[in-house]
Structures are given as C-alpha cells and as structure tokens.
C-alpha cells in the first residue's frame, strides 16, 4: 500500500514538472499535428485516381497513421536520459537508499511525464481526426468502438513493453558509459521496423521477414491490426506478454549486473 502511494506521488510530481514549461507544452501540439498533415497529403496524392493500394483504402491508411501517430511516442524505445545521468553522475547512490526499487521508480517517473503527453496526444489526435472527417478524408464510421477498446488494451501492453525496452537501453550505461550510440541506432531502425513509417505489409519481402522475428512490430503494426480485427486480441496479447516477460528478465538482469558494477564517489 505504501509502495503504491509512493508510485502515485512520483507520477503526480512528474505530471506537474511536465506542464511547468507552457510554451514547450503548446508547441508540442504543432510538432505532432503539422508533420501528420503532410503525411495525409502524401497519401491523398498516392490514392489519387486509385480506390485501393496494397489492400488499403484511403480512409483505411489514414486511420492506420492516426493510430500509429498515437502510439509512436509512447512505445518508441529510447535511452531515458534521467536514468543514464543518474548512473553516470553517481546520483544513483542516493536512490539506492530509498525504499522503492530504482527500476520501479524510473518506470513511475516515465509514466507520470508521459501521462501528460498522453493527454496532449489524445486531444491533438482526436481533434486531427475530427478535422480530417470534416475535410472528407475520414468518416466517423471508420472508427469502431469495439476496435478502439481492443486498441486501448493493446496500447497499454505496447506502452509497457516500450518502456521496458527504454529502461533496458538506459541500463546499458552501466557497461558502456555512453548509450547515445545505442539510442541513435534504435531511433534509426524503429520507424521502419515497427510499421510507423509505412505498414509492414507494404514493405519488400526481405524486410518483412526480418520484422517477423523482432519485437518492434508488436509496438505499432500489430496493435493497429488488432484495432482493425486482422489480428485477434488474445493472440496479440499472448505474443506481447511473451516479449514483456523477456523484457522484464532483460531489465532485471541488466539492473542486477549493473548494480554490482556500480561505484560512486560522494562529496
């Protein structure tokens, strides 16, 4: 119970910190909205004079990108710089004295700051979808309530999986001292291999085969297929749970091994 209260307070503090910089907060709307609009323009041009492309209709592909946009920033694995800084600067030593295990604390901080962003993204994506409906690119019928509920379940699973991968990447700092390289590498390959750049079934066969054996597709492409009913929810959850188990084991192993190596000189 006490542990839960600490986690809740950590999330609340992170929310307040994220909303403190209002200009950045407002600008983050534009960072999401305008590039997305350009993607819509591109696909409208691609579908010009065509009813279907690779089995997708125009509204189908726009719904795909609306959902991919919603998912991307939450599931995108990246080095958490506050975690890597704690390790590099030695501030982790202070955290080790606290009653909450550090990996859990780091997850709670991230959940709190991302909860703010989730509110922003939900508003922007919702408003964007309404505008697209008004402009005639989408219709309300393109969104099914049952599909959205299935998607919400998959979103939570994918969010947690993405966070665990981010934590694992951050704990790599215990061994490499600088995880910038790893972070860059993931940020380069993730958009293509997760299906956020383009649906995986539109890619050439050899890339599709590579994607099949990687966890990234369960972060973007498969949750969208669950929404559209092309992938059964239970099957997708089972597969994601498998990757979650692997991710937890990896995070725990990296944490234990890293903690054993960790040294800090206080002042």
């Amino acid at each position, binding site marked *: 119970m006490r542990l839960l209260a600490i986690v809740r307070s950590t999330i609340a503090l992170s929310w307040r910190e994220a909303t403190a*910089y209002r*200009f*950045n907060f407002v*600008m*983050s709307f*534009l*960072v999401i909205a*305008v*590039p997305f609009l*350009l993607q819509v*323009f*591109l696909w*409208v*041009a*691609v*579908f*010009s004079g*065509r009813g279907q*492309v*690779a089995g997708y209709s125009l509204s189908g592909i726009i719904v795909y990108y609306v959902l991919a946009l919603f998912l991307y920033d939450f599931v995108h694995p990246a080095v958490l710089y506050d975690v890597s800084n704690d390790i590099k600067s030695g501030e982790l030593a202070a955290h080790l004295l606290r009653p909450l295990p550090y990996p859990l604390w780091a997850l709670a901080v991230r959940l709190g700051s991302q909860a703010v962003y989730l509110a922003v993204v939900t508003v922007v994506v919702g408003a964007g979808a309404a505008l697209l409906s008004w402009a005639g690119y989408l219709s309300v019928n393109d969104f099914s309530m049952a599909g959205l509920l299935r998607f919400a379940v998959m979103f939570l699973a994918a969010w947690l999986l993405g966070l665990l991968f981010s934590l694992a990447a951050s704990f790599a700092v215990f061994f490499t001292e600088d995880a*910038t*390289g790893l972070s*860059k*590498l993931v940020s*380069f*390959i993730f*958009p*293509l291999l997760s299906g956020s*750049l*383009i649906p995986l079934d*539109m*890619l*050439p066969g050899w*890339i599709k085969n590579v994607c099949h054996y990687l966890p990234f597709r369960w972060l973007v492409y498969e949750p969208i297929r669950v929404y559209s009913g092309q992938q059964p929810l239970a099957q997708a959850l089972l597969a994601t749970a498998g990757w979650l188990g692997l991710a937890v084991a990896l995070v725990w192993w990296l944490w234990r091994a890293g903690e054993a190596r960790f040294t800090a000189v206080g002042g």
Partner: protein
Amino acid sequence: MTLRARITRYLRMVAKQLWLGWRAWRSYRASFLLGIIGDLAWLLFTIVFFSSIYSHAGDIGGWPWADVLMLIGTAHIVNGLYTALFESNIRRLSAGVKNGSLDRWLTYPADVQLLLTFGRINLRGFLTALLGAGITLYALSPVVSQPRLEAVAIYALLLVGAVIVRLAAAFLIETLAFFLVNVEILRALQNEFYGYATYPAAVYPNWVWKLAFTVLIPVLWMANIPAAALRDPEIAVWWLFFPPLLLALSRKAFAFALRHYQSAGG
C-alpha cells in the same frame, strides 16, 4: 589588403577549419562512424519508404520514381552542406544568449552574425552531401533523364540558395532566443519539417499550401525548388530572389533583437 591576399587568407582559414574537423573526427571516431551509419540508414529507409509506395502505386500525384529519387538526392545535398558548414555554429547564438557567452562575441571587431555563422566544419555533412550527389547523378543519368546545361546551372544555383534559406531560417529561430531563451522545441519542430523535404510538391493540395511551405516554412526549398529547375528552369530561376531576401530579413531580426539584449552573463 589586395583581393588576392584576401582570398588567400580566407582559403587558409578554410583549410585550417578542415584540419580541425579532421582532428575532431580522429578524436570522436565512434560518434562520427555512428553518425555516418545513421545517415546511411536514413537514406536507405527513405528510399525503401518511397520504393514501397511505388511498388504498389505507379506514381505519387503524377511524379515518376526518377523525380522522387532526384528529390531524395537533392534533400541530402542541402542537408549535408548545411550540417557541414553551419549547423553547429549557429547554435552558439541561442547558447550564448542563455549562458551569457554572447557578450564575448559582441566585443569582437567583426560582424557578429558572420562570426556566429562560420567556424567549425563538420566533415560528416560533406559525406551526406556526397551520398546525395551520387543519388542525384544516378537520377540525372541519361538512362533516367537528360536535362539541359542551363537547367543544371540553375539547379546548382538554387542548391546554394536552399542552403542559404535553411541557414537564414535557422538563424531566425536562434534569434528568438533573445525573447524566449529556450528555442529547442522550435529547432526540433523545424528539423521535423525538413524531414518531409523529399515529399513531391504535388502532394500539397493547392497553391496556398505550396506558398506557405515555400515562404513561411521553407520545406519545399530543401529539395523541390532546386529540383524544379531541371523540369522548368525558366520558372524556377525566379526563386533566386528569395534566399538573399530571407538572409537580409534574418540580419534585420538579429539587429533588432540585439538592441533589446540584456546580458545574462556574470
């Protein structure tokens, strides 16, 4: 000082900067190589993205594959040259405003904007530009298309213009640091926009959007405007007026901001 002596002096300075860039590469080899891998991956993924679309739909808004390849190559040349010559330099302006080190620059007996624009050279940018040039040459090869000589000349001029537009637009953003202090989100937004430079102009629904993304947010300048010279040089040549205009505007904005500058330094 004679013109010849002045040119020799500037060439020596450029050579010195190239030498320093080479030394920086030797010191941070892993980071440099990683950057190159990233550039290659980004280029590869852009090509995969568009080729996947072309394999399912024959064209994008009437644009054939070769023309989009030309856009990809051109965008990489512009981005590479900007990264090589200016990117890390002009960031010193917002950093200087934030930590007060701009005061030092203001004491130098030279044009401050010029000092902040030139300096460090990032060799990685030249490699990106070289990759872009390779793709552009492939798209230009006789098998694909054969432009007239004057069209190629206008294309080259517009390429330089595109780098100046990117520089001036970035300088305008950095100048906002005098009023906002932190411009990182604006810089991120601008870079996000330039990621869409390879989209053909045909995807913009009407002339209002095209004008907005040429003048207000100069995304179309990063590839479409220079590449248009190869299709329609007589019209594209008129765009050459814009880069000096935007550069002049950035100078005016910088001068205006300087008049309101209060040092944060200690």
